[in-house]
């Protein structure tokens, strides 16, 4: 089977919701067109309620689209659900697919039966997963007695037992400690390397996206707001990392560093927060620059928060819509510069680079409007 592993065209899903006494139509996914090739690792991010789960449910055949098309592994998810189930594995971070009162091993046995694995396939694959995910210590413990980290690893193994071509993970690292997260990520990278598995994951964790994904889709109010790689996303929104340094003695605010920007100080300058662009410099360089001026006792690096990235993308998208309405009809927005999405002045506010005009039209009488998006 050649071709895309996921292909959607104008995929749309509406829900009727009760709003007090009236019923109102809510568009959870709005004209989503995306193509994912076999072997890709795609991060699917967006705020809560942006439409991530709805998309996943349409991809896996749980929900019927209101309009538009979707093909998963070349199959139509709803009519071909049972055939599709053999090729897709899904991990829901906050829901369990295991049997609560059964030992992990027993759950795997049942799932192997459900997916009709032969005895040989079952034992080979179980052994591989037990080894890779380090499940050996708790195979005979009932699921309800596992720690969250152990349970997530068991969940992932359960979803991957039938060696699916496509693995969808919904918030796989939520609530896990740093070590558990890292283990899980390493396993997923290895799984992809060994079997060419396609990964699609939703997450609120920037670390997941950075370490696992080579492509990122940002969804906002059901619409695709960004499709590209992580450096592009960081460039687009100017996501910065923050280096927090604890100094031996109070030092005046470090505002004169070349590689970093001073954000704030505490304790009269004992602790300072410095923002830097990971694309242009490294934490080590910033640290070296700080060390020239003061003795550093301790440090932490804060990852750019995915919520923040998403917020910036959203803000950028909306800002430009406003900008567009100031322009002539059909004006081309490509090339309007500016490093960040904030409004720098009146008249010609800076536009986030990477923006492109998607569509334009007249919003009202004599009121030029341009709809733009990020490409």
């Amino acid at each position, binding site marked *: 089977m050649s071709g895309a592993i996921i292909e959607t065209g104008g995929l749309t*899903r509406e*829900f009727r919701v009760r709003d007090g006494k009236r019923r109102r139509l809510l568009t959870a996914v709005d004209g989503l067109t995306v193509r994912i090739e076999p072997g890709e690792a795609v991060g699917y991010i967006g705020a809560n309620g942006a439409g991530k789960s709805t998309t996943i*449910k349409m991809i*896996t*055949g*749980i*929900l*019927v689209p*209101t309009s538009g098309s979707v093909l998963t592994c070349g199959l139509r998810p*709803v009519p071909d*659900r*049972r*055939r599709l*189930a*053999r090729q*897709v*594995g*899904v991990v*829901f971070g906050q*829901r*369990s*697919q295991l*049997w609560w*009162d*059964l030992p992990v091993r*027993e759950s795997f*046995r*049942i799932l192997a*039966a*459900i*997916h*009709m694995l*032969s005895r040989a396939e079952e034992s080979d694959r179980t052994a591989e997963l037990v080894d890779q995910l380090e499940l050996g210590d708790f195979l005979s413990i009932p699921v309800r007695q596992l720690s969250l980290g152990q349970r997530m690893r068991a969940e992932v193994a359960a979803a991957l037992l039938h060696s699916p071509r496509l693995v969808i993970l919904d918030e796989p690292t939520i609530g896990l400690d740093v070590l558990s997260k890292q283990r899980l990520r390493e396993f997923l990278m290895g799984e992809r390397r060994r079997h060419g598995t396609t990964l699609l994951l939703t997450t609120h964790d920037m670390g997941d996206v950075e370490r696992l994904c080579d492509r990122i889709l940002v969804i906002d109010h059901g619409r695709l707001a960004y499709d590209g790689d992580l450096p592009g996303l960081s460039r687009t929104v100017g996501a910065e990392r923050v280096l927090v340094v604890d100094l031996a003695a109070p030092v005046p605010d470090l505002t004169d560093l070349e590689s970093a920007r001073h954000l704030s100080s505490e304790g009269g300058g004992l602790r300072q927060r410095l923002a830097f662009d990971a694309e242009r410099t490294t934490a080590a360089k910033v640290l070296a620059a700080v060390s020239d001026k003061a003795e550093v006792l301790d440090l932490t690096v804060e990852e750019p928060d995915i919520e923040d990235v998403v917020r910036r993308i959203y803000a950028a998208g909306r800002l430009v819509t406003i900008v567009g309405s100031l322009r002539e009809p059909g004006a081309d927005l490509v090339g309007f510069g500016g490093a960040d999405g904030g409004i720098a002045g009146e008249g010609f506010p800076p536009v986030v680079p990477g923006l492109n005009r998607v569509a334009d039209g007249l919003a009202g009488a004599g009121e030029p409007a341009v709809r733009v998006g990020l490409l």
Partner: protein
Amino acid sequence: MASTAEATGLRERLRPYRAVLASRARSQRAYRTNFAIDLGSSLLVGLVELAEIWVLFSNVTALGGMRFNQILLVFGLADLAFSLADLSFGHLDTLPDYLRAGTLDAFYLRPQPILLQLITSDISLRRLARAAVGAAALGIGLATAGVSWGPRTAVLVTLALVSGYATFAGLFVAAAGLQFFLLDGAEMTNAFVYGGRYSASQPASVWSRPLKLVFGFFFPMAFTAYLPAVTILGLPGTDWLPPWLGWCAPIAAVWSWLMGLLCWRWGLRHYQGGGG
């Protein structure tokens, strides 16, 4: 691989369901004291319902043209069939729990039909105690109610039990389907599932005509026990419910499943949002 799958045939096709059911059964028996208490309480419920009839008959000698041991036959048929249906299908009317826990979504990710997965996802072995009460009542009824023994009776009893089981099972499927729509749907579906069970163990001859329409035909409860009992005992039956209808119990079962599957299909479509 395809050829080996075909060769092993039905047994292999049933493997997923057997695996789940066997583990459910094992886990219920794993805690012996707990299981014993479950069995005990289930037995008690069965006995209380039987006692209800006994109390009634310590005040009257006949009800709806039936004596106590004849009623025992009706009660036994209805209760045995219902308990067995409850044992294997009873968890269907806790569908909202499955929805809340996301278990139903997990079913979508497995290569079996959703309804079959739901049916085989659990089993309540404690209902065996209740079934034992039904079986005992049926045995005593058959032995004392003046049944003329022969192949005809054996066929009728078997027909009644199998059809009754299927009829009640169909009701559970309908209840599950409707609970996709109804908030607190269990309140409403209990009315016809447990109301149905209750009415099934009564002689339909005491019902008013509207009741005969509802629990005689729409929810075909009279077909699970009263009508077969009338046919077995050679009683005259009652208005709208002649004794030959006892032979039509399988038709009632088919009708019940038709309703059940329709409700289920309707509910599932609603869940997926593919329109009614």
